[in-house]
């Protein structure tokens, strides 16, 4: 534990990080510094480079230029917008994915943490969307990652389930203390959860604000509202030349080829 703390106490550093897809510059010489243990939210319009940045941090994609310095021995886990559970594995086996057999107990524990201990033997197809995301969260946290990446994990959920999930994510983040990067369209969600909100616009940091409000936060609180409005105004001012197509490029570039270098 001590050694792990030592290893991961250094921050994540991004300097002049660039990523292009053909002609289109998605990340344009981005500078960012993420201290250990911080809950960082990245907001912005579609095509602003949010998901691309997350994929670079996750090691799912490679930068074209600049430097991305991650702490040695850092373990990263991603929670995607879709739960991406393996439908042929039980809920418990999904949480235990990639875990050595002697650590199955931890999978059960993680499942209990998200309140789904009683569904351990169920097939994923039998769960609701919110439950599937809770399983995905348990699956991410069971590895005790030092960096947790959340790629709009609540985007597809209904409003009430979203609020419940936000509470759960905040509570588990406080317990685990891992550095967390949340990509979201929802400014209110960012202000609710994050220590710091970064607005990405045309591949650059357009705004970088700390959120100095005590947890757990009340969206009706006047300082909360003021901060939310401030960020929202800035998002709306920004250029809107982006096309939705840009957002799909990273996904499209996956394809089957991925299987080949995976095996």
């Amino acid at each position, binding site marked *: 534990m001590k050694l792990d703390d030592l290893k991961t106490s250094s921050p994540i550093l991004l300097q002049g990080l660039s990523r292009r897809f053909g002609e289109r510059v998605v990340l344009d010489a981005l500078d960012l510094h993420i201290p250990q243990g911080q809950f960082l939210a990245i907001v912005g319009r579609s095509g602003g480079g949010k998901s691309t940045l997350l994929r670079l941090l*996750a*090691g*799912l994609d490679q930068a074209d230029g600049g430097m991305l310095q991650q702490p040695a021995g850092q373990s*990263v*886990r*991603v929670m*995607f917008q*879709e739960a*991406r559970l*393996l*439908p*042929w*594995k039980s809920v418990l086996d999904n949480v235990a*994915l*990639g875990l050595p057999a002697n650590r199955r107990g931890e999978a059960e524990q993680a499942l209990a943490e998200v309140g789904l201990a009683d569904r351990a033997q169920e*097939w*994923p*197809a*039998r769960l609701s969307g919110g439950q599937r995301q809770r399983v995905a969260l348990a*699956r991410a946290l069971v*590895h005790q990652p030092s960096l947790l990446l959340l790629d709009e994990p609540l985007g597809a959920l209904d409003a009430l389930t979203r609020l419940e999930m936000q509470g759960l994510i905040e509570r588990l983040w406080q317990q685990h203390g891992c550095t967390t990067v949340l990509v979201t369209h929802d400014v209110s969600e960012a202000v609710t959860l994050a220590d710091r909100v970064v607005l990405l616009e045309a591949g650059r940091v357009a705004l970088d604000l700390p959120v100095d409000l005590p947890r757990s936060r009340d969206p009706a609180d006047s300082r909360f509202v003021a901060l939310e409005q401030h960020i929202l105004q800035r998002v709306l001012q920004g250029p809107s030349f982006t096309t939705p197509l840009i957002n799909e490029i990273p*996904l499209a570039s*996956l*394809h*089957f080829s*991925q*299987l*080949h270098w*995976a*095996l």
Partner: protein
Amino acid sequence: MSRSVSFARGLWQRLLPWLVPLLLVIGWQIASLAGWLNHRVLPAPSEVLVAFWQLLSSGDLFRHLAVSFARVASGFVIGAGLGLAFGLLAGVSRLGEALFDTTLQMLRNIPPLAILPLVILWFGIDESAKVFLVAFGVLFPVYLNTYHGIRSLDPQLLEMARSYGVSGKALFWQVVLPGALPSILVGIRYALGIAWIILIVAETLSATSGIGYLAANAREFLQTDIVVLSILLYAALGKVVDVAARALEKRWLRWHPSYFKAA
């Protein structure tokens, strides 16, 4: 609603589909007894039953059945095994695809029965001729469906598994194979149907044992009762094999929504 009423209703529901075949057989028997049907053309059901009993008590029936079944089984195991192996190879590795796919796609267009004269020249009317033909017919549907099943795997699941540290053998067994399994099983069921068709023709043309030989031999001596019996035996065997394949599907795909609805 008493329990016995709903039980009776359940029984009625179950028996209802058998009503039409039963009436047909009764009508057929009446037509034969009344002399409307020449028994050289179509024997009465009772005559078929008598032929069945005679062949059963002489032990001939079991002998021919066993021979046919062994031919289908060995041809199927060889053909499906090769189809599966090539399908997995071409699906998982680019080299495998480049090496085998074009060749197999070309061979696939040869109707298995078109090579029958050649096979008879090669193997005579030996066992290996029948086994070869069955294997040849079975190989391609299994190959195509295996290859297709792997190629249409959800790239998002593969990406997730990779980012969770699942790779190599574990990726194959936990993600690739189960993901391709529904498609592979479709190929296997289709191949089983083809296997019987090929065997019938091969046995009718060149054999000294087996159900097809039984039918061809009976035709020589105008024993229409045995010809009809052989046809019914093929139907029964095909059904038995299909039921077995379905049971396998039900067990292996029990995670699939279309299977646990019935449970």
